């Protein structure tokens, strides 16, 4: 594989996970409450999408995955706001519960390929792969020839278009009245309540939106890899955090639009870093540890920098 191919592969992966990074951004940076539903809801989006795709509705499948997870988000939010369970625990509870739901959606198995049995002309039962949005897009652009025949590039282009629309919609949404109220709820919930706005409802909307985004990522990945798997969600939250934090290191903390863009950029860069690590013969099971280290490093860096600056100042004063 040439460098270009590697880059395209990394970028297309980054784009696929970008909606997940956006979802993590919404809870972690806007609501300022990390939502641990992510690991479960990523798979939930994937399984629901697989089931609906096999039923023959590929485009609706992506939306169903997102909507189903908005409901999972609703459960988490209700546990937080009505049952007054700690946000972290609420997410873990729903995520754990979703494990069973996911198994059920996959028909009691741990993975499901996007194919269905059909009877061919000879009267034999054969497996036919189901159409996905990527396959449909591929059929559309393949005649253009050249680079367009590359499956990774196709994935990248379609996902890029989807993520661009998604990011633009989110950017607009966060400046509407409900969008701004969600931002304010993360910033100062008491002030939101005293402005006669139901802060619990705003928090609920935010968590539902975030989970829908995460699930959408899972649904896209399901279409791209052509199967759903129970294990795909492990460590997803840490990966999302890593993307958001990498993006923040690059883009700074300026505003909500810059934040959304840097979450997407962070997701891309994160995959490039992983791809480079693979090139250095890093075994694939190292990914989780690497992600964890990135998050820890990025979270401690500002503090570290502050401590170093303080020490430098002290030295300067002494000199």
């Amino acid at each position: 594989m040439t460098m270009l191919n590697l880059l395209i592969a990394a970028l297309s992966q980054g784009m696929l996970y970008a909606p997940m990074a956006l979802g993590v951004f919404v809870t972690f940076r806007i609501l300022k409450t990390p939502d641990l539903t992510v690991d479960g809801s990523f798979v939930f989006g994937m399984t629901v999408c697989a089931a609906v795709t096999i039923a023959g509705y590929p485009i609706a499948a992506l939306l169903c995955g997102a909507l189903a997870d908005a409901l999972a988000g609703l459960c988490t939010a209700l546990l937080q706001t009505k049952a007054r369970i700690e946000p972290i625990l609420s997410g873990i509870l729903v995520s754990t519960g979703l494990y069973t739901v996911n198994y059920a959606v996959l028909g009691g198995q741990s993975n499901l390929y996007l194919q269905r049995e059909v009877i061919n002309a000879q009267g034999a039962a054969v497996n036919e792969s189901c159409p996905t949005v990527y396959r449909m897009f591929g059929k559309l652009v393949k005649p253009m020839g050249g680079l367009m025949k590359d499956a990774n590039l196709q994935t990248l282009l379609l996902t890029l278009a989807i993520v661009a629309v998604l990011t633009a919609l989110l950017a607009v949404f966060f400046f509407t009245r409900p969008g701004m109220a969600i931002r304010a709820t993360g910033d100062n919930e008491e002030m939101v309540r005293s402005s006669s706005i139901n802060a619990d409802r705003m928090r609920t909307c935010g968590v539902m939106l975030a989970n829908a985004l995460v699930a959408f990522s899972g649904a896209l990945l399901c279409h791209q890899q052509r199967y759903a798997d129970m294990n795909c969600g492990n460590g997803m939250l840490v990966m999302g955090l890593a993307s958001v934090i990498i993006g923040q290191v690059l883009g700074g903390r300026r505003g909500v639009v810059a934040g959304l863009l840097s979450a997407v950029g962070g997701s891309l860069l994160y995959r490039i870093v992983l791809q480079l690590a693979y090139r250095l013969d890093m075994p694939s099971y190292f990914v989780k540890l690497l992600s964890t280290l990135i998050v820890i490093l990025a979270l401690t860096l500002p503090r570290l920098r502050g401590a170093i600056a303080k020490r430098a100042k002290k030295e300067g004063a002494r000199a």
Partner: protein
Amino acid sequence: MSSSPLSIQSLTHRFEAGTVNEKLALDRLSLELPAGQFVTVLGSNGSGKTTLFNTILGKLIPDEGRILLDGEDITRQKDYKRALNIGCLYQNPLRGTAPDMTIEENLALAYTRKASRSFFAVNRRDNRYFRELLAGLDMGLENRMKTKMGLLSGGQRQAASLLMATIAQPKLLLLDEHTAALDPGAAEKVMHLTETIARRDHITTLMVTHDMDYALRVGSRTIMLDSGRIVMDLSGEERARMTSGALAELFYAKGKR
């Protein structure tokens, strides 16, 4: 049926009822505020001021008694619902504003309860109104509307909080030592603004203060709380004759019991 903006009828609240730590925070407290009246509230720590405010704001549901706002019973109404007609300001200027959002966004959020419908929260029509309000503060904030609230000084943030609390012309304004954390200059300014706005919009106001001068100088009536009851209610002639020294003596006499 009383038609005064705020009518509090024998409000009683106990903390940790039925235990050895039982504390009677409000003891059949009754209070009527005529429309537009500005009342200052004195009382030592634990006299029931905060409990009174919290029951009016809906952060606490009283054991007994009723609270009527403009004739409507709000005793058990959800806090955010009654906030439609109640503005509130605390001692800590950070409590009333969202630091990561701009000044105009903060004002737009506070204005949401009375603003006409619009797609974007910040829009040109409302902004013209916000700019006028900010110019009235005389702090130059009207030229910094895109600045994040967190970058303002305590005095500026409290002045902005005051605007936010009164932006939707509430029926009732509650002030909980809202100038106590400010330097004397800023405190004087915010107090002056408070009086101006309350008078201009004819807002019925309750202001807790520990400053005897403010207690007598600001508003037209002074009440003192002790052990969850109103032990002094001064207005008119009687209040005009009272000096801050005499008031302080009364205050300590009540506190010693």
